[in-house]
């Protein structure tokens, strides 16, 4: 199973169904908000005077229901969590922006989406709020330049989830959030009884059963856990097209689906030194060279701009790889031969990092290709598998000539193109926009 559906991650004019699907989602969203009473600013403002806590009840019920279902689906292997948008954490702009929103909330009586439900049903104050919203967003666009560095960097932690913060299994966090929400609902009902003078005996008994069902589901999420990298690796599929040229006829294009192991076996993820080098000069992609060897080997010799991440620490950088580099990044894994790079490839693709490739033959093949005329490098006859096949006069890192081949000298290189760029969503705009 491959949810979310790749066709629907990005809206695009080439697939009008995307507009329809997102339109339907929006429709349901607006409908629910209106029928819950969020078109009326008094119902929203009452939250902050403890007379009626509808906002808290609707919002937290929605959060816990969506959370339990989402992580349940992730645990069952139906949904790939790495393809689900998780708002990146920007500590300080988040907190300050949140406080400003709170002020706007109590002064204006709406939040942006509830103002849509309000304005569309004829509430004049909702229309004024919407109008003010367009002005506020425009002012932000004009003033962002005065604090752009702070806005984009202060307290930036990337894709950070609560299980990472508290170092707990995600299922346990789900359970704790459910229990916290139920406690808040209980508190909210007490406040409504005392401050709002509401007769709670008329509340439906079904809500107790609902709370029980939520707890049971949350325990199920704990029990199911998350799929291991190995399980995710085994479920991966890659598609490649194959063109067969026939004389005098239209070429036949076949789309073939491969498993991850077949991609390795057919060597579809191995790029030659020539392709790895030429990727630097390709405007369409941004190659990132990940050198997975031990630091000592890296210090002896490495390709220019390669980043050293030893194999045993490669999983530590997965959250960064998933959130930070631009969508057109291509990761090229480098070991001395191929063994360590293949292991790293399995870990990365199993963690849903996209566009990961392996340098064919590793550093040894790179030197054989670009450094064959460097007389200071002598072959090391005793090198075993995945060890450096050369002896170096000094640990010069990337200061050997062949570490950064001359683009003029190697302008024309022939290679069979293996890199097929998979573009994910554009992340520049952020989640809510």
């Amino acid at each position: 199973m491959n949810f979310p559906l790749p066709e629907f991650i990005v809206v695009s004019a080439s697939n009008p169904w995307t507009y329809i699907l997102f339109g339907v989602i929006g429709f349901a969203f607006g409908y629910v908000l209106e029928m819950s009473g969020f078109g009326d600013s008094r119902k929203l403002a009452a939250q902050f005077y403890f007379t009626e806590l509808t906002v808290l009840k609707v919002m937290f019920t929605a959060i816990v229901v969506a959370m339990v279902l989402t992580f349940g689906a992730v645990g069952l292997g139906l949904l790939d969590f790495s393809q689900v948008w998780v708002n990146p954490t920007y500590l300080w702009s988040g907190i300050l922006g949140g406080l400003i929103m709170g002020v706007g909330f109590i002064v204006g009586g709406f939040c942006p989406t509830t103002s849509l439900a309000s304005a569309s049903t004829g509430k004049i104050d909702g229309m004024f709020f919407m109008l003010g919203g367009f002005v506020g967003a425009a002012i932000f666009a004009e003033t962002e330049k005065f604090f752009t560095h702070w806005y984009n960097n202060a307290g930036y932690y990337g894709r950070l989830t609560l299980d990472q913060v508290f170092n707990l299994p995600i299922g346990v966090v789900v359970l704790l959030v459910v229990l916290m929400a139920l406690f808040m609902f209980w508190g909210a009902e007490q406040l409504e009884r005392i401050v709002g003078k509401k007769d709670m005996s008329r509340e439906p008994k079904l809500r107790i059963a609902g709370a029980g069902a939520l707890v049971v589901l949350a325990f199920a999420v704990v029990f199911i856990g998350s799929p291991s990298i190995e399980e995710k690796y085994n479920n991966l599929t890659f598609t490649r097209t194959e063109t067969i040229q026939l004389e005098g006829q239209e070429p036949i294009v076949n789309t073939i689906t491969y498993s991850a192991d077949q991609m390795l076996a057919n060597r579809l993820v191995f790029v030659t030194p020539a392709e790895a080098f030429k990727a630097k000069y390709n405007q369409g992609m941004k190659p990132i060279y990940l050198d997975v060897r031990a630091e000592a080997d890296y210090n002896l010799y490495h390709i220019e701009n390669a980043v050293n991440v030893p194999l045993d620490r490669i999983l530590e950088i997965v959250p960064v790889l998933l959130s930070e580099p631009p969508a057109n990044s291509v990761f090229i894994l480098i070991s001395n031969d191929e063994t360590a790079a293949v292991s790293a490839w399995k870990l990365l693709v199993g963690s849903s990092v996209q566009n990961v490739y392996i340098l064919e033959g590793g550093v040894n093949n790179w030197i054989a290709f670009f450094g064959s005329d460097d007389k200071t490098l002598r072959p090391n006859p005793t090198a075993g598998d995945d060890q450096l096949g050369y002896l170096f006069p000094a640990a010069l890192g990337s200061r050997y000539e062949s570490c950064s081949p001359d683009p003029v000298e190697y302008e024309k290189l022939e290679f069979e193109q293996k890199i097929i760029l998979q573009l994910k969503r554009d992340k520049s705009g952020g989640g809510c926009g």
Partner: protein
Amino acid sequence: MTAQAKKSIFNRPEKPYVHPYFGGVVLGIVLFLAFFLTGNGLGSSGATSRIDAAIVDAVSPSHVDNNPYLLKMAGGDKNPLDDWIVPVFFGALIGGFTSGLFNGRLKFITTKGPNISNRTRWLMAFLGGVLFLYGARMARGCTSGQALSGGATLSAGSWLVMFAIFGGAYGLAYFVRKLWN
């Protein structure tokens, strides 16, 4: 029968709102389906920003070129409206209208506290909208995009934003109580 029972679409008898927990469960399922099918959650404030960018791009494209923030959305041949959040925004408008229609709540009225005039309420709603969207763009998402969607995916930053929103509103509530009580 009285005029109330007439089957005019714009004059249906007003039905009560649904129970908050029921509304929450339905909203939660909608949010889950959004994640499950598309990988995106819910939101709307981003669309406000993008519609702004589209207007600026239509009126004065050179201004877009001088503003890095707008450039990201509307630079070059980019169409700022080509984003999932825009159909969600318009869908929510139509969805809200439809619910109002079926439940007899389509009326031109102003919802406000008992002790302020309509004009004060309109001014405050406008000011609130300015502030809210300014804050929402700063925090990269509003109550839907951050609190709801980020809350459900357990984003650490979104939980902070959520607490900040409630903190800001509760902190100021006492001082603006005349608006609502």
